[in-house]
């Protein structure tokens, strides 16, 4: 291979899609390292504190597309304080200096300010695509800057961000000459947009294929939009509350029937049952359907809709679909690959919810199922064993039984055997979330069988340190481990400290690890950052008489070549 000219090697590397493959070839020899680094266009940084931005840009001068992740995953559930970190600015600054040809930026769980967006908008003349997922810190002013200065913008995708509404008509900031939009998603914004501006924007962007509106966009406006963009592939409706007796509703139905390319639908805010009739004409082509923000749609109406969706591959619903509804999904959606069932009432057993029966039905009816997120109030070992047998192809299996420590209601046993069956059967399982009553036994099984597992989420489980040790010993490919409220302590933590350098990160909160244990870990492993997040009042300084026996309420450990970070707030101690 080393006798080939560089251009040939580079051309061969072009066929390597994944970051991991490219990372692997760059370690083969110096020549390959050099060829690879100059030819890498897409750079992915899984932990923004694992490496300094300047170093990334220096290594990959040809970078066109950058993806960075910030806060740990449990930040999604309010376990990480607001100002913990994950700032986008250092990355944008570094790119401004070293990578002016940047085209795409994707940030997840990071803090992005309006000034950051302004800087971004003005600094990269070829900028095409901005994707922000679960970020915070910015407002519609920042969006206005993006709209104003990114002349060739193709994609603005805002997923589940907390965006302050400053009322600025940011959408109007897209210049009349901007006709390049392919994808626009502002579903997470709370404020109004000018309907006329939106409609004109849609009308002048002939390549628009993905459009996700926010709740403030009316049905009338939706109608205008759909009429002007019949080539849409992916649509998120705005408010879907409409009186089905009106002309507006009829027009909507007509517009939808003209959308021959529509394959993905979401939104349906405030949808009421009879409104769904308008959507029936497109059901036959749907591959993606997200009804998880429509609590007013009950099982019968969902069933009517879904029974037309033969091609469905991805379905997100609320648990009011019930086991009955899931049975219909199982008999209709033979192409289903991903299912997510969210709880509609999180503070008590809902009137309708799903049980193990629904899951078993899905598993027997949908042989291609590989990704599951399922919230329910109960689960049995027998059901999980059946599911494991029916669906050996799971790559992602996340089960959330809403009551912590809940055993199998039929046998009163822990769910060790059920989850054990899942890991034994699903040899390609990469992501797993556990719940229900679980002993150390389930961890023995996971360590024994889940050899491909990369991400494991554990809550309210286990009996002793042995549980965690089984995981660390057995799961060779583990990258992310997050644990809350489990009886794992220093013995488990310190059992194999070198393991953590093979992983991206470890999170432990409300467990039994002590400050002393964390200090010991930090002392042994200089290339790990061991952060303690301390939220109790009055103790901002590590030095203050805190015994090493004191429990570490929240600990976040990650490998890094950047050393301790310099932007940590007072309540975060890096040991």
């Amino acid at each position, binding site marked *: 291979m080393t006798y080939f000219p560089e251009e040939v090697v580079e051309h061969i590397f072009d066929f390597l899609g994944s970051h991991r493959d490219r990372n692997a070839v760059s370690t083969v020899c110096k020549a390959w390292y050099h060829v690879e680094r100059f030819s890498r266009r897409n750079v992915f940084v899984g932990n923004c504190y694992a490496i300094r931005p300047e170093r990334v840009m220096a290594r990959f001068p040809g970078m066109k597309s950058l993806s960075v992740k910030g806060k740990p995953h449990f930040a999604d559930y309010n376990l990480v304080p607001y100002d913990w970190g994950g700032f986008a600015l250092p990355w944008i600054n570094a790119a401004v200096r070293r990578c002016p040809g940047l085209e795409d930026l994707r940030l997840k769980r990071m803090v992005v300010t309006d000034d950051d967006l302004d800087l971004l908008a003005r600094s990269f003349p070829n900028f095409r695509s901005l994707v922000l997922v*679960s970020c915070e810190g910015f407002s519609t002013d920042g969006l206005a800057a993006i709209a104003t200065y990114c002349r060739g913008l193709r994609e603005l995708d805002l997923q589940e961000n907390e965006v302050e509404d400053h009322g600025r008509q940011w959408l109007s900031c897209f210049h009349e000459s901007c006709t390049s939009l392919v994808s626009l998603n502002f579903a997470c914004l709370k404020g109004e947009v000018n309907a006329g501006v939106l409609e004109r924007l849609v009308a002048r962007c002939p390549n628009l294929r993905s459009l996700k509106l926010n709740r403030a966009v009316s049905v009338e406006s939706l109608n205008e939009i759909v009429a002007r963009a019949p080539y849409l592939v992916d649509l998120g409706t705005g408010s879907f509350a409409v009186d089905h007796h009106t002309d507006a509703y009829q027009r909507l139905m007509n517009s939808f029937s003209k959308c021959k390319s529509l394959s993905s639908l979401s939104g349906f805010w405030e949808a*009421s049952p009879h409104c769904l009739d308008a959507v029936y004409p497109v059901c036959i082509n749907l591959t993606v359907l997200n009804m998880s*923000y429509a609590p007013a749609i009950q099982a019968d109406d969902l069933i009517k809709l879904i029974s037309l969706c033969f091609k469905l591959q991805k379905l997100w619903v609320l648990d009011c679909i019930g086991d009955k509804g899931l049975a219909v999904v199982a008999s209709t959606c033979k192409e289903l690959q991903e299912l997510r069932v969210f709880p509609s009432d999180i503070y008590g057993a809902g009137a309708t919810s799903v049980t193990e029966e629904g899951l078993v039905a899905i598993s027997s009816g949908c042989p291609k199922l590989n990704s599951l997120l399922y919230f329910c109030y109960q689960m049995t070992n027998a059901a999980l064993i059946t599911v494991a047998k029916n669906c050996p192809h799971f790559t992602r299996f996340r089960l959330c039984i809403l009551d*912590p420590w809940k055993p199998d209601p039929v046998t009163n046993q822990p769910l060790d055997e059920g989850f054990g069956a899942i890991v034994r059967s699903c040899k390609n399982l990469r992501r797993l979330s556990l719940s229900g009553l679980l002993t150390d036994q389930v961890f023995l099984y996971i360590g024994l069988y889940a050899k491909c597992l990369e991400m494991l989420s554990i809550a309210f489980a286990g009996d002793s340190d042995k549980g965690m040790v089984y995981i660390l010993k057995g799961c060779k490919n583990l990258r992310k481990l997050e644990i809350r409220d489990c009886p794992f*302590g220093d013995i488990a933590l310190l059992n194999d400290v070198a393991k953590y350098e093979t992983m991206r990160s470890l999170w432990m909160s*409300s467990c039994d690890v*002590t400050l002393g244990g964390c200090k010991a870990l930090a002392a042994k492993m200089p290339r790990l950052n061991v952060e303690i997040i301390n939220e109790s009042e009055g103790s901002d300084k590590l030095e203050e008489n805190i015994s090493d*026996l004191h429990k570490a309420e929240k600990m976040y450990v990650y490998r890094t070549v950047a050393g301790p970070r310099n932007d940590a707030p007072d309540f975060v101690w890096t040991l």
Partner: protein
Amino acid sequence: MDGGVGYVDMDALKATELRLGLPGSDPPEKPPPTTTTTARPTKRSLDEDRAARREPSEGGRATSTRATKAQVVGWPPIRSYRKNSFQAMKAAAEAAGLYVKVSMDGAPYLRKIDLEVYKGYKELREALEDMFKCFEGCKGSEYAITYEDKDGDLMLVGDVPWEMFTSSCKKLRIIRGAEAIRGLGSSQ
């Protein structure tokens, strides 16, 4: 898979144990010492639960010695974005007056229904009959469904178009017996 690795059937053991006290009232067992525990400054609502929980627990902690679900931070694991959306939607739905109380003369408690769920008067009537059938005296007793509108007046259900009704109805009242029959026009 050998499910019996390391297990002792505590239930069977406990059943044969002689002890004073009423059946079914087990004193909480002491947790086995794992690491030394010291007092922590931050109180967690689950502290007591975990201490009580550390039994070789197959016996099923069926019900809660635990704090209510609402107190556990970050549980269930739903993104705050989704949680907030739901709360906003629920608040909006309830504020719009779609959920209304339904009272029936003689019934010991009221019910609540969501008018949005029904397509028209017939469905509403059927739903109410179903809901209150356990309270009906003799079969076929006369009753009238009335509602209180925005102005506080008691109106007969069925006179105005359905959408107008749902937007003005504040609560429903089912009147039974003689009052119902008296001069309310055509049978419903």
